[in-house]
């Protein structure tokens, strides 16, 4: 999400600030009125003033999906045709990796596509990893695949992997095409950017529902949702890469006589391959995160394993499958980053002989073919034998349960303590506040930061939330996000400070934060549910864990980014280390830290969407309920409610960060 720039001091005219004071006064007035007259329209918007947006939206979508026809062809036929088109590559890859797949071949009749033996998959992936990043990457990827096999998660993992592969392929192609289109027609940018933002802010369940209406419940829906969610970074990176290509390269292409499309596809894009591959890395990681969530709607895969295990309190299994997702994420991240950071090297392509040039790949393919042939004789090489699997699920499950039993008192104390001292009071505050008061406060802040018109937009958006009847749920979402963000900052900022003070700790923290950021959001649900079972507390803690990375990172970078000369000057002036930290470094790093806070909030909102799976009760639960009842209107409207909350909160906090650093600049002259 792009942060807006707060207006400069010159443009923050007196009318804006007087209007924001008026808004503040009105907010105070609503509080006073609500104390005297609880339940008045500014306190609780009466049902008769609300507008049901959900039912008409649902009806409209249902009409389009089942009754509408364009030029004599029913929309449902088109969507079904499209579904088959997308389904085919998915079934093909799944057939290759996970389950046999029957294809209709015109002359021969139906043929079953053979599934690749697990041993062949291991060899091919290891070869790829070695080519990409040498021995360490080979070890990592082999260990990951063996983990899947040994713990009996092979088939689930392969389902997840196939979905990721197909989604990444589609996402990259679509992203490239969109990115190029936006580059060629810069006016599209004004549309494209907000659309990308919304697509990525909308909770994944929200657009799963309409997709279910069109494509039915199943793998295609999950795949389309994944593609929509994971594609925007590729499109953005493509446009940006094209824009940042040196102008002389563009001129060279022109002078060489390239056609406009050759210019883009043969010269500019390949020359920015590194940027594009970083985009691919993001598509891969987002695809995995989404595939895991989407698999809970019946597509099968590791995410489904985790959720089912959590729901039936099989904690050992949940942890095992959760670790499988974690390993897969880390491996995919490292492999795709290795691809992005490869440097061109002439020694790799020096031989004109095709086989010599590709000796590595050829050897891997030969070995794979050999293993495949052998697997017809040795079935163990084909399907990993069940008796070789070894699950620690029971042991871990036992351990977890006995831990939970032994520390039942402690766990209950924490749960109750948190509920009574923090969660309930904050929730009550958020729920009791008159809706118009909250909206006015936000509008006042928006007006002060950005001027009257943006303040008005913020007010209108929040009124829309109330009118749509989403206010009570919105407050339940907001209170979780607010507490989680504060926790994330309270834990993250000190860790970031320590990391900035000690370079050795800093390196450790760097690796840890990197890893935290590669993990799919879904994984964060596992440990907290294992410890506290379902409810709002584990939801809160999962959000906190997920949102902690930017709090740590921005604090650390803010502090270590302070000019060494400034620190030396302070030391020469005789300041102690603590004084330097509190009087020099922290104030200078403050804008960074506030920026980290706004990132923390955005992360918290994106995690919020899936905590409905484990028992949070805000807008996000509406999106999940909508999925269960296949009610696309409810899903979309509630999802847009989350989008509005995210955008408003992000703008206010990042605006405050911008204002802060701007005022500091001015103070310093």
């Amino acid at each position: 999400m792009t942060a807006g720039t707060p207006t400069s001091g010159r443009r923050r005219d007196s009318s804006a600030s007087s209007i924001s004071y008026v808004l503040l006064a009105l907010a105070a007035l609503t509080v006073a009125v609500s104390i005297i007259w609880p339940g008045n329209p500014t306190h609780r918007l009466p049902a008769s003033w609300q507008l049901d947006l959900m039912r008409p939206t649902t009806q409209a979508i249902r009409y389009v999906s089942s009754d509408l026809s364009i030029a004599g062809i029913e929309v449902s036929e088109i969507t079904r045709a499209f579904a088959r088109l997308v389904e085919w590559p998915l079934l093909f890859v799944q057939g290759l990796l996970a389950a046999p797949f029957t294809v209709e071949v015109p002359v021969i009749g139906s043929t079953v596509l053979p599934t690749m033996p697990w041993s062949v998959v291991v060899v091919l992936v290891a070869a790829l990893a070695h080519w990409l990043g040498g021995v360490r990457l080979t070890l990592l990827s082999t260990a990951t695949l063996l983990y899947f096999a040994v713990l009996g998660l092979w088939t689930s993992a392969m389902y997840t992997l196939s979905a990721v592969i197909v989604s990444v392929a589609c996402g990259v192609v679509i992203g490239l095409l969109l990115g190029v289109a936006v580059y060629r027609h810069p006016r599209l940018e004004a549309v494209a950017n907000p659309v990308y933002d919304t697509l990525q802010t909308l909770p994944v369940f929200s657009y799963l529902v309409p997709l279910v209406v069109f494509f039915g419940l199943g793998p295609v829906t999950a795949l389309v949702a994944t593609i929509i969610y994971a594609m925007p970074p590729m499109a953005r990176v493509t446009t940006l890469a094209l824009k940042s290509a040196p102008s002389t390269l563009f001129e060279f292409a022109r002078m060489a006589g390239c056609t406009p499309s050759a210019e883009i596809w043969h010269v500019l894009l390949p020359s920015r391959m590194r940027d594009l591959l970083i985009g691919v890395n993001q598509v891969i990681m987002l695809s995995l995160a989404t595939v895991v969530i989407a698999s809970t709607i019946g597509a099968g895969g590791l995410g489904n394993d985790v959720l089912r295990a959590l729901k039936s309190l099989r904690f050992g299994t949940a942890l095992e499958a959760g670790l499988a997702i974690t390993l897969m994420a880390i491996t995919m991240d490292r492999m795709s980053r290795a691809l992005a950071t490869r440097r061109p090297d002439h020694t790799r392509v020096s031989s004109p002989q095709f086989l010599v040039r590709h000796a590595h790949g050829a050897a891997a393919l030969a070995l794979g073919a050999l293993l495949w042939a052998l697997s017809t004789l040795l079935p163990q090489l084909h399907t990993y034998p069940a008796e070789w699997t070894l699950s620690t699920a029971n042991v871990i499950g036992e351990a977890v349960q006995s831990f939970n039993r032994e520390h039942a008192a402690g766990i209950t104390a924490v749960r109750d303590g948190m509920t009574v001292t923090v969660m309930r009071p904050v929730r009550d505050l958020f729920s009791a506040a008159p809706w118009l008061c909250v909206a006015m406060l936000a509008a006042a802040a928006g007006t002060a930061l950005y001027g009257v018109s943006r303040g008005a937009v913020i007010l209108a958006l929040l009124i829309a939330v109330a009118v749509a009847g989403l206010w009570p749920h919105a407050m339940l979402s907001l209170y979780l996000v607010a507490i989680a963000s504060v926790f994330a900052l309270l834990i993250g900022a000190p860790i970031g400070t320590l990391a900035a003070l000690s370079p050795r700790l800093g390196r450790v923290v760097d690796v840890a934060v990197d890893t935290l950021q590669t993990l799919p959001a879904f994984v964060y649900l596992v440990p907290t549910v294992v410890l506290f079972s379902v409810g709002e507390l584990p939801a809160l803690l999962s959000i906190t864990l997920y949102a902690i990375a930017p709090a740590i990172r921005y604090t650390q970078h803010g502090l270590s980014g302070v000019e060494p000369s400034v620190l030396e000057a302070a030391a020469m002036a005789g300041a102690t280390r603590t004084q330097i930290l509190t009087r020099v470094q922290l104030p200078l790093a403050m804008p960074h830290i506030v920026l980290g806070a706004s990132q923390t909030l955005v992360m918290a909102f994106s995690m919020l969407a899936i905590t409905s799976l484990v028992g949070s009760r805000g807008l996000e639960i509406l999106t999940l309920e909508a999925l269960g009842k296949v009610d696309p209107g409810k899903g979309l409207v509630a999802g847009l409610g989350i989008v509005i909350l995210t955008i408003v909160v992000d703008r206010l906090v990042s605006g405050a960060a911008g204002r802060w650093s701007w005022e500091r600049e001015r103070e310093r002259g």
Partner: protein
Amino acid sequence: MKPDVSGPAVIRCRGVWKIFGRSGVARLDDRDALDDAALSAKGLSAAVRDVTLDVARGEIFVIMGLSGSGKSTLMRCMTHLGPASRGEVLIEGQEIAGLSSDELRIIRRDKMGMVFQDFALMPHKTVQRNIAFPLEVAGAPPAIIAARTAELIGLVGLEGREQYYPSELSGGQKQRVGIARSLVNNPRIWFLDEPFSALDPIIRYELQTELLRLQKELAKTVVFVTHDFDEAIRLANRIAIMRDGRVIQIDTPERLVLAPADDYVRRFTRRVDRLAILTVGALADPSQAGEGEPLAASALVRDVLGRILSTSRGTPVVDAAGRLRGAVTKEAVAAALSVCEALP
């Protein structure tokens, strides 16, 4: 010594203006007056102002000026990469603004080559593939591409580096690739925009020498942009000096030194090594006859200094046709060399 060239004009610029607005290319009305007041009233600025010049076939035409004086912009008007806002540009007699985009593409592809200051190599292709690229675009047969690429690699001395990637080359080597690539389609017009400015002085000198060697062999029509007056002097048949978008003088290096149009040009000429530029023809005094064996008018003073100094009555000078042009005296040489001392 540079060959004397005065062929027909290959590139003609007639009253060329290039005008920029605050955001890129500005809309300009045909009736708009082009003076500073009118332009700045519209928020426009002129990067090239009323340039008229001819580039003759086979010459090295250098555009020299300080950074920001509009050299690259003028060159972009010639290649139509940044079309002129006013005036006309003719390439081999064809008005370039009147061409369709396909015609333009083919003219650029077949008739023009270009070298860039930052090399503009494609990082994802090897040296060989970079050089071959223009031919691939033109759809040449693979056998011809291979042969021609190998020839160019030999011409710029990059044998053995065919499979290297640009990131594995030094700056000088990169520009050799750039030069080879710009020549691979055997263009008749060769544009070079500050090709050596990013290189160390020694490499720069080496590549200048190389360029002169190539030009002797290939006889292209060359438009060479530089901000380095010494480089201009060394390479040019003629130099156009630019300042604030205007061409203030177009002349041979020798004429620039002997008859600078204004103080701005004179300041550039002050530190040049005159002995390396001046020819005896330029210093010959027609009213004198001199004595002894005559000198060729095109001979550099530096090469015959001993003979000029050894006589007191001057040495006769004859032009290429053998006609007597007068005599060059010690005094004339001393006067030409001491101009710089006389300046403030």
